[in-house]
């Protein structure tokens, strides 16, 4: 399974999202390849992704995709990440 975290620069916020998503997936006993990318490379980075993690600002720019786009409000709230990832993957 492939998960892509998207932000404006591809560093900073998307990296935090990647790290915390990996922690949540490990807790859930799920294996996935989580990468961080910037919005300008979303087409290639997320071409074969099942899930895109991002904030609401990028939903329009991500546009049409086969991936499930999950909007995260608090990047440090592992409970929110857990609930939304479980719902998407479960």
């Amino acid at each position, binding site marked *: 399974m492939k998960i892509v975290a998207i932000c*404006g620069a591809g560093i900073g916020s998307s990296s*935090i999202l990647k790290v915390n998503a990996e*922690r949540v997936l490990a807790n859930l006993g799920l294996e996935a390849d989580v990468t961080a990318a910037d919005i300008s490379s979303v087409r290639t980075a997320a071409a074969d992704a099942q899930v895109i993690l991002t904030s609401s600002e990028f939903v329009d720019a991500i546009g049409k995709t086969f991936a499930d786009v999950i909007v995260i409000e*608090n990047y440090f709230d592992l409970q929110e990440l857990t609930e939304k990832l479980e719902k998407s993957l479960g």
Partner: protein
Amino acid sequence: MSLPPLPEEAITIGADARTWREAVRLAGAGLEASGAARSAYSEEMIRMIEEHGPYVVIAPGLALAHARPGPDVIKDGLAVVTLSTPVAFGHPHNDPVSVVLGLAILSIEGHLASVAELANVFNDATAIPAIAAAKDAATIIAIMKREQ
């Protein structure tokens, strides 16, 4: 894992900022004071928000201002600004912001470990209010290094 360097001169406590732009410029000034970035980096951080919206407000009360690696970054560094009066960035859930972090990263390669340490600090929900309430730089450094 260790954070990007956060020296005392990169910390501004109880600052007055009327707008989110002023708040981000204060974080940029901290990065400039510590030698992590040139002054133009502030405007790059502002441009990221103008271009993509207030997504840098990644948790209630906290903005992680940053731009891409580039010629205005001198070395990896962090800055912390606490605001006497919180300012709105226009985020639908996490406004108003009382703590602004400035992040400068020299290269994409190898930055993940240090940014991951930010997650270790702020996954503790008490960290943001504790930093916002801190009266001195030493307290903020201790919270960021998870020494208290």
